[in-house]
Each structure stands twice: as C-alpha cells, then as structure tokens.
C-alpha cells in the first residue's frame, strides 16, 4: 500500500490517509491554489467604498428606527397595489400558459421538425436567461410605466418556465397512444387532442398553479422598475424615505407569499 511507508515488521501499516478526491497531487493542490487565488483576487478587485460602507451601521440604525412601528395608515394604497399585482399575475399566467403550449410543441424533439425545434428552444432559452427585472425595464421603455409592462414581462417569464417543463413532458409521453390514434386514421390535430393532450393535461394544470404563485412573487419585484403592482408602491415608499410604510408593505408581501405558497402547494399535491 503506497500510503503506508513505515510499516511494522509483521507487515501491518500504522499510518493511514484518506484517499483524496483528486488522485493527482499536482492537480489537487493546483486547483486549491487557484480557488484561493481567485477569491483573494475577486475580493481585492471589488470596487468597494469602505468609508461609505462604514457609515452603513449608523444609516441602518436610522432606517430601522424609522421603520418601526410599521405604518398601515395608507392601507388603501397597499390594497390597491396588491390587487393590481394579483391582476397582473392572473393575466400573465393565462397569457403565458396559452403561449407556452404552441412553444412547447415547437420545442419538443419528438414532435417538431429540426428547424422549428431549434427556434422553440431558442425562444425558451432567451425567455429563461433574462431576469424578469431586465425584461420589465425594456417593456417599461417600450409601452410605458404601469401594469401593462408587468403583464408582458411576466408572460415572458411564464413562457420560460412553463414551456420548458411542458416540452420535457411532451418528450416523454407514451408514444404508443399516439401511434394508436394514427393507426385508426386520426388526423394531426385529433392525434394531438386524443393522443397527446390527455397525457400532458395534469402536468399543465399543476404548472399553471405553480406559475400563478411564482408570477405573484415576481410581480412584487418587477414593480420596482416601474411595471406596476405592489412593487411600484414599495419602490415609491423607499424613494420617499417612508420606511415605516415600506416595512408594512414588506410584511404584507411576505405574508401573501407564504399564504399563496401554502395554497398552491396544497392544490398541486391533490392534482399531481
């Protein structure tokens, strides 16, 4: 055993080392050194204004003393903001899920011809890669401030997730049922309706509920860059240094998110 240089007369070693994860010592220590070097370099390179940071604790104290107790005085504004977020989430879920269906069929390897498959995949990758806030800021520029930009943003966001999951589901459907439909002479759309849809419907409903929940969360965020809903209310409160109102909004956001997570979890458990 190479790990036991000083073995005893009877041949039993008295040293032991755990076999390393990476056998080659050069590579092992090289990787460790590289990781350490990277972290040091990354920390040193960050443009941090330490003086400004040092003031942070005093500011944090001021912000928190301004935030307590949270103020629910303008609860009308708060409720309006939330209802708007809810509307944005509902419309974006409906739009996103409907648009996801054709895109998912385009992006399913087993149903779509190559060029269409690639187009479908590209659409999904683009929709998934951009954070909703980036999408929102572009829509805000294109169609103006307000909930419309929010709905459009979250439609894109929904497509990124729902179309991807749905395409995966379509790719793993039981092909026998499709062939059975074809063998009785059904056309393309009847095949889809009787051979494919029943297999993906439960997943699609589950995904829609999940997406409604995540759209509600995301709508709080995209509002910060002007796309309507409770996020806009929050960003305004922050901008006006109304920290007590901002805290009240945050508390309600957290409560609503926890509630909607619990509800959507329950519903999906029954459907899936």
């Amino acid at each position: 055993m190479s790990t036991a240089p000083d073995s005893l007369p009877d041949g039993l070693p008295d040293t032991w080392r755990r076999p390393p994860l990476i056998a080659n010592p050069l590579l092992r220590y090289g990787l460790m050194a590289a990781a350490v070097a990277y972290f040091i370099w990354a920390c040193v390179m960050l443009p941090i204004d330490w003086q400004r940071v040092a003031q942070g604790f005093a500011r944090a104290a001021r912000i928190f003393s301004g935030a307590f107790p949270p103020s629910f005085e303008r609860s009308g504004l708060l409720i309006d903001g939330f209802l708007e977020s809810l509307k944005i989430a509902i419309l974006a879920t409906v739009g996103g899920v409907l648009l996801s269906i054709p895109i998912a069929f385009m992006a399913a390897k087993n149903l779509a011809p190559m060029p269409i498959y690639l187009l479908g995949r590209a659409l999904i990758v683009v929709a998934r890669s951009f954070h909703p806030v980036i999408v929102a800021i572009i829509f805000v520029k294109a169609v103006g401030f307000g909930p419309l930009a929010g709905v459009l943003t979250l439609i894109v966001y929904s497509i990124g997730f729902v179309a991807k999951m749905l395409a995966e589901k379509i790719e793993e459907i039981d092909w026998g049922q499709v062939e059975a439909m074809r063998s009785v002479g059904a056309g393309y759309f009847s095949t889809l309706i009787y051979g494919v849809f029943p297999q993906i419907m439960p997943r699609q409903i589950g995904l829609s509920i999940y997406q409604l929940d995540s759209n509600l969360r995301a709508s709080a965020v995209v509002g910060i860059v002007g796309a309507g809903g409770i996020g806009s209310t929050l960003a305004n409160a922050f901008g006006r240094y109304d920290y007590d109102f901002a805290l009240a909004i945050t508390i309600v956001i957290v409560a609503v998110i926890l509630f909607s997570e619990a509800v959507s979890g329950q519903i999906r458990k029954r459907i899936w």
Partner: protein
Amino acid sequence: MVSMDPTPQEWARYTPRERMLRFAVFLFTALAIVWSLTSIDVIWAWVFDAPQQMADLFGRMVPPDARNLPSILSVLLETVNIATIATAIAVVVSLPVAYIAAQNTTPNAATLWLGRFILVSSRSVNTIIWALLFVAIFGPGIIAGIVAIMFRSIGFIGKLLGEAIEEIDKRPVEALEATGASRFKVIVYAIVPQVMPTFWAVAILRWDINLRESTVLGLVGAGGIGIILQSAIDTFNWQEAATVLLSILALVVLGEVVSAWLRKRVI
C-alpha cells in the same frame, strides 16, 4: 352512479359531482380573468400598439454597438465575482442555520423557531427588495449587491440543506452515539457525510441562480452589469443596450453549462 342496464345508452366521462366541481373551477377561473381584464389600469390603445412599439425598439437595437465591449466584459466579470463571493459566504453562513432549522439536530424548540424564522424571512423577500434595503444602508455599490444576494441565498440553501438533514439515515447516528462520541463528532462523522452531495448540489444550483440575479442588481444601484444596462437605456443608447443584453445572455448560458458540468463532476 352505474346504471343497472347492461348496455347504457349514454356515456359520460365524469360523475355529476365531478362535473359540478369542474364547472365551478372553470367558472371561478373565468370570473377571475374577467375581473382582472376589466379592472386593470391599462390604456387599451397602448396594448394594441405594443407590438408596433416593441418592433420599433428592437429595430433601434440593430446593429448592436460593440465599441464599449471591453468595459462591458470587465463589468460582467465583476458581476460573476459578486455572484460567486456572495454564494460562498451564504453557503458558510447557511450551515449553522440549516443545523438549527432541522428538527432532528436543533438543540431545542427556541432554536428551531429561530432557524425557521431566519429561513422564512430570507426566502420570502426577493433579492431585489433586499438590494433596495442595502442600497439605502450601504449606499449604491457592489457591497449592497453582495449582501443582498447573500441574504436571499441563506434562506434557499438553508432550507434545502435543513430538509436534507431531516432526511438522513438515522441509524449511523445511533451507532456513533453508542460508541460514546460527543455530539459534535457524531455530526462530523454521521451527518456531514450524508448531506455532502446535497450540499454541493444546492451550492452549485444557487450559484447558477445568483449569476442571473446579479445581472439585475445594478438596476437598483447595487453594482454589476445592470448599471451599464440602466445607463444605456436611460440615454436611449439602444445599440449598446443590445450588446449588454447579448453579453448577459451569453453569461447566463455559460453559467448553466458550467454548473451542469460541475454537478456532474462533484456528485
């Protein structure tokens, strides 16, 4: 119910009760949509105008202007650093949080609730909202971004890790307790090896997510590539904005490839 007639004349897919329930769900969904459509604060003319506006905007993005590419790339690297450093710190901090938030390892009921409180408050507040807060505290800049991402990641990693701790095989734990090992040694020998695969998988997954999140921090002033995007958009420099968007796309796709590769290597 099933009719006594051996060959029923009619066939229905659902029982009347099921049909009622389905109808109620459909009705409720339809009402929710109608309510949203009719009461949302939208100028409909703008909606029909939107495709035109989008086409116009994308038209102005072509061709992308790559003159600032070197500085865009260097800020992009900075964005990667924000994500990586924040993930690394969050991973370390989330370990004790996961430990006290897991039912089978937490010392007592008070620590369990403390752990759960940390996880819930971290998880329910989005990175961007954390960033708003930390920009107000630390001022605009990278440190606010790192801290924001860190705060959000602790809840994510801590929750998944805590669940992994709750799902471990308890038998080795019992065996090591029987040898007279201290609590800490039992953790190191019986619990840590069991949650290691989850630990790496979650850390890599969160790094991938954080890469995406760090691209938008700049839009609220918390550093990274978002700052360049914001200023390009504010100055209507759409061609440069297009370059930034393309480089973000490349970064995110690359990040997904790297994390998929790492996952395969580590697990």
